[in-house]
């Protein structure tokens, strides 16, 4: 390796660094800003006309009705030498506290029928005012679906992760036991790595549908005589089951791959020593494999937990997003500018911030727990 002071490595990492600054760090700060700011326009009234820097005499909210008491006409000289008239109005109206405020403002800030004669107008424009506020957070927490989204997300995580880790370790051990056709098994076990959450959701919806494969199977073997409706609004348990199965089916492979690469790093001597001293599989697992796998399992756990907070398309595909909701779906619903959504990026950002915060807390807790254990082991 080259060690003298060298600009080359900095130049080489610069593009990635800049890219992540623009498309990662900046949007992250922006989302916190959106979540904690009131982003509205406020009309600031001035003490004298045609002077944007005149003293402030009051503030009006958008859509306030105001009465016009005076008006001034000015001429703006355009670059081509012609002139264009523009108006300033002295208006009064009720501010946010109900007090009447009076002051000057430009025509572009008002909805006014006739600049020369109208006596009434409506505030339609102003300066963007950015105030720090907890209003978006309050709105998120007070929303009827908030607690359900949070509990469903956590519930799914608590059910899915343990099953996933046990299954992944079993899959990894099977792959490590040098079977014939090992590469075929490896390929099959890795297929779900490339399957999207949406596709997985659609696949498992086909299983649990009223005329789906599970009902076909159960009717054929005679357990039930007519199809059972698994996925209905008053049958949340089956809906959760379908989502859990879809997530286990889809996202266990990633844990498996991490566990296999962890297993490959365990020196063969350790395993052989265990076998020579007559340890059975469970003893080897408990005393050799799992302790040595800990770093890999820790990485997989952090990765999977953070992905679990983002669970989205599987839930939408199976429940339509209405019966069951999760944090990521609420983020989408609040952002969504179409008729069914709220078109409110501020509350959506509050949800995004919550997901970030939960991910951060979980990572820190895991890392702390592992470090505490390691320190205890050293003493």
């Amino acid at each position, binding site marked *: 390796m080259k060690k003298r002071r060298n600009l080359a*490595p900095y130049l080489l990492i610069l593009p990635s660094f800049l*890219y992540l600054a623009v498309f990662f760090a900046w949007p992250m700060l922006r989302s916190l800003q959106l979540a904690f700011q009131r982003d509205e326009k406020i009309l600031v009234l001035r003490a004298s006309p045609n002077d944007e820097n005149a003293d402030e005499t009051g503030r009006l909210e958008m859509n306030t009705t105001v009465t016009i008491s005076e008006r001034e006409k000015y001429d703006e000289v355009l670059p081509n030498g012609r002139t264009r008239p523009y108006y300033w109005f002295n208006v009064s109206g009720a501010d946010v506290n109900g007090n009447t405020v009076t002051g000057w403002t430009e025509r572009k800030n008002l909805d006014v029928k006739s600049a020369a004669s109208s006596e009434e107008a409506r505030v339609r424009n102003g300066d963007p005012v950015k105030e720090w506020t907890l209003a978006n957070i309050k709105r998120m927490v007070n929303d009827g679906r908030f607690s359900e989204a949070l509990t469903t997300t956590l519930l799914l995580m608590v059910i899915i992760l343990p099953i996933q880790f046990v299954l992944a370790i079993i899959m990894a051990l099977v792959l490590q036991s040098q079977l014939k056709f090992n590469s075929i098994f490896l*390929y099959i*076990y890795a297929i779900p790595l*490339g399957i999207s959450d949406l596709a997985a959701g*659609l696949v498992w919806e086909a299983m649990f549908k009223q005329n789906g494969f599970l009902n076909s199977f159960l009717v054929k073997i005679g357990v039930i005589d007519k199809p059972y409706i698994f996925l209905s609004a008053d049958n949340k348990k089956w809906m959760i089951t379908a989502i859990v199965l879809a997530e286990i089916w889809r996202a266990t492979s990633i844990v498996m791959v991490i566990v296999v690469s962890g297993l*490959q790093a365990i020196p063969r001597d350790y395993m052989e020593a265990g076998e020579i001293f007559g340890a059975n599989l469970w003893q080897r697992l408990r005393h050799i494999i799992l302790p040595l796998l800990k770093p890999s399992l820790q990485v997989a756990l952090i990765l999977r937990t953070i992905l679990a907070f983002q669970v989205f398309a599987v839930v939408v595909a199976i429940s339509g997003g209405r019966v069951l909701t999760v944090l990521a779906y609420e983020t989408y619903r609040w952002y969504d500018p179409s008729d069914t959504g709220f078109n409110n990026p501020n509350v959506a950002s509050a949800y995004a911030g919550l997901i970030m915060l939960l991910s951060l807390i979980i990572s820190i807790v895991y890392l702390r727990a592992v470090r505490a254990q390691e320190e205890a082991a050293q003493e």
Partner: protein
Amino acid sequence: MTPRTLDPVQRRALRRQKMRRASVYALAILIALWILLPIWLIASQAFSNQEDIYGFPKTVVPTPVSTETMDFFLNYQGILQATRNSVVVAVLTLVLSTLLAMPAGYAISRYIFPGRAAFRLSILAVRAFPIVILAVPLAVTFIQWGMFDQVYSVALMHTALTLPTTVLVVSSVFASIPVELEEAARVFGASPFQAFIRVVMPLVLPGVAAAAIFTFVMSWNEVFAATLLTIRNRTLPALILYTLNKSPLEFQYAGGFFMLVPSLVFIFFIRRYLFNMWGQITK
């Protein structure tokens, strides 16, 4: 040591070992079926006719095999355009992500410099971050910049999502090539750039290609950000998600199958590199 000379105890041990071996095979096949059966079933629905789609009970093999459902899906309004958008987004993401990651990966694996550990750590942190969530502020920003609802802005978002993984994978690929090869080329008079292009590039190409394919699949599959960042220029998953509640069953089955086909193909090509890719990340 032929089996004939074994005493009963040894024979019993041998039998037990064979039994154990057989049960491992049974387990391996069971897990394989757990993964393959749902894929087979959705494929069987995608290649059946309308009668079958709405019929009950369903059969494991469609009778007759028909392209009716697949045709219906592919001719559904907007699907071809959305598929094209998805491919464009995924290719742009692949190219951008690989171009940015190559130099960074090379720097991490070949140089020791102040800030190297910090850079690597921040890449790891970004990798574990719920990046798709950033689609909300990015959508707001893109609207302000006039970049909203564009195929390339989805690719920009997806690159942020895939770049950390690509950097780590590419750096592990470079780390597996002995630096001595490069130095030998330098001794024989090659410039650093020539040494890189002539000696290192051919060796890292398969690994980098595997990383690039994985990038493609990640982008092809991504739903959340794509749905938030587009309205008319939907990618395939975004369009399918958006039309989910209004679309007929054929659409959902064929769509589900159509989306998972690339993973079947691409994972086959990169299966040998998967552990190299992830081994590095666990360190």
